Each structure stands twice: as C-alpha cells, then as structure tokens.
C-alpha cells in the first residue's frame, strides 16, 4: 500500500498538507515532552536529565521496529521510501558542530521553535543565531562546496553497506536504547542527589 504518494494512492499535492499535520504533531509532542526548556535539553550533557535521549530513542526504535512490521504486513514498500544520501565526513563534522551548538545554546533547531512558541527569550536568540548561521553558510557555500559534497556514498542503508539484514540492526538498536534508558535513570538519580541549585 504505502508509501502513499509514490504509489499514487493520493496525489503529490498532499505532501504539504501531510507535512503540516506531522509538523503540528511533532511540535506538540516536543513541547509535551519538555523539550521547550533548554535546561531539560542541556541536562543530557551534564547528566541530570536524560529526557532528550529517552524521547528520541523511543521515537527511533518504535519507528524502526514499526517500519519493519509494516514492510512485513505489506503496508509499506521499503524499496520505495526516500533514503537521505550519505556524505560521510561532512556528516561527522556536522554532527560535532551540532553537538557543540546544542551544549552551548541549549537547543537544537527543532526544539528552539517550541521554545519560541511558549515565549522563551533564549529560544528567540537561538533562532536568530540559527538563521544568521544559515545565511552565512549560504554566502560562504563556494568555500565549503568541495567538503560539503565529499565522501558521497549515495542513498545507502546499513544493510547495503554491511550486508547484515535490517532486523538485526533494529534488535541491536533496541537493546542499546533500552539499556540506555535504564542506565541513564541511575546516572540521573546520582547526579540529582548532589545538585542543590536546580529543582526537578
């Protein structure tokens, strides 16, 4: 059956409507998970709040295992879904930059908008910086172009690269994620015990 648009079940014009609906749901869940607070978000780096890790890992493993079941039941044709092309080095560097930005600014791009939605000043500053950064990068793009497009592997999946079936990765990620849930809970408890200035 799925994906709906490539299979012609609904028209291509619907992608914007679906994007808005998913965007609203995404923003709602982010806010409801407490992602509009930069303290919650940055807590993952200091060890007193791992909600980011738990929420994103939950979303990841549920989606991953769900997609495999959808494929099995014939609801989603995995060969037709879009796979983001991989650029190895730029992605690693980008990840590091993003991580630093996350610690320093207290938000990631998506969560900064949920921060704005509830009127957080720091989120407004973060978002202004975000757009300035995008603008600066666009202007300086010719400088980075060679690096930006280096290490292109195409639209590959882990299964393509390693030959290991997708369900083994799903199982491995699930086990790691669940272990992380329980492990971080203990870390959280310990760290919070020694913190006096921040109430939970």
């Amino acid at each position, binding site marked *: 059956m799925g994906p709906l648009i490539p299979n012609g079940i609904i028209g291509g014009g619907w992608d914007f409507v679906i994007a808005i609906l998913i965007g609203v749901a995404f923003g709602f869940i982010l806010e409801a998970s407490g992602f509009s607070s930069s303290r919650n978000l940055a807590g993952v780096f200091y060890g007193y709040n791992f909600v980011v890790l738990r929420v994103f890992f939950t979303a990841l493993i549920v989606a991953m*295992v769900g997609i495999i079941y959808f494929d099995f039941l014939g609801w989603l044709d995995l060969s037709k879904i879009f796979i983001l092309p991989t650029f190895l080095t730029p992605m690693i560097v980008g990840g590091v930059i993003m991580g630093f930005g996350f610690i320093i600014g207290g938000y990631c791009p998506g969560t900064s908008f949920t921060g704005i939605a509830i009127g957080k000043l720091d989120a407004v500053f973060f978002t202004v910086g975000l757009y300035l950064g995008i603008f600066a990068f666009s202007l300086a793009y010719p400088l980075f172009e060679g690096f930006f497009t280096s290490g292109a592997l195409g639209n590959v999946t882990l299964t393509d690269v390693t030959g290991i079936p997708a369900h083994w990765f799903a*199982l491995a990620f*699930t086990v790691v994620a*669940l272990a992380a*849930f*329980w492990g971080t809970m203990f870390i959280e408890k310990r760290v919070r015990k020694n913190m006096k200035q921040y109430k939970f």
Partner: protein
Amino acid sequence: MNKNYIILTILMLVLAVGTIFLNREEEPKQIEPSKLLQEIIQPTRYVTTDQVAKMIIKGDPGLMLVDVRSNSEFEEFSLPNSVNIPLDSLLTGDNLSYFGIPGTQVVFISDDAIKADQCWVLTKRLGLNSTYVMLGGLNKWMETIIDPQQPSDDEPYTVHETYSFRKGAQMYFTGAEAEVGGSKVKVEVRRKEKTTVAAGGC
C-alpha cells in the same frame, strides 16, 4: 521503579526480537513492467515448428526444449530430447537454473502456445534471456511436421520447398518411408506364366 516502564521495556524487546522471526519471502528480482510490456508485444519470441525441427535434426547443441505440459501429457507424447517442467512447477526447486545460460536457447512447448507463452512471460519477468516459444505448440507440430499437407501446384516455390523439408522432417521424426501413402503394400508374387506354346527354335 515505575511499573509502566518495565512493561513497555519488555514489550519493546519482544517486538524487536519478533522482527527476526518475520518470515520474509525473498521476492525475486524483476525487470521493469514497461520493459516487460515492450517485450510482450513483440513477436520475436516465437520460433516456428520448422525452425525447431531443423534445429533438432541438425543436433543444435544450444537448443533446449522445455515441455510445459503436465507430466502425464508429457509421458504420452513429447518431442525428442525435451525436458518436462510443468507450468505450475516452473518456479519451484532449481528449475529456473535451466534458463538464462549463455549460448543456449530455451524453447517452450505446450499443446498450443498459451501455456508456453505464460512460461515465457514468467521467465522474461525474472530477467532471463534467450527463451522462446514454439508458435502453435504441438498442435502445429502435428499439422506441419508429422502430417504435412501437399500444397497445390500453383503455390509459390517457397511453399513447395517448405513442404519438401517437412516431408523430410516427417521421415526423420516418424520413420516413415518416402511416399508410401500410408497403406501396406501388398506383395504379389507373380509367377511366370507358363508358356504352353512351345518356344520355337530358329
């Protein structure tokens, strides 16, 4: 410790482990539907009974005849050196390993061309090349090779040429003798008539 977390953790683990046991049937690789359609509407897959007969007689080593009728029909009558792979068991076992071998031409044979055509579409869809269909099937074979009809005198030369080839092929496949007319020749012993008149001497 929150009870819900424990339940959800176990549920997630069970679901993740369950993915390993999902019985995924490996879908065979297929060619693009548009390409298949293009191949289907072209008559290049057909070989005539004359061509098949010629190849059999010449002992073409690249020729492989695949009879797609049922086993019992195959037992009853089949072309020499043909292999029986019924249509419904085409994709089972390692039957597919017969096809797509470089240098061989697989010709599908059935009573008419319908079952053979179906087999051809299946193999083509799987991307296997050099498979053909005997046009008209065994019915046509009977009509043209086993029991060729003599063309009338005003037919073109090529028709007569084909007929003489078919006649030769008929002899090859049936062991019939040339122009016997099918009936038994009654052997009549003619005795030399007795001459009553005395042969006169000089």
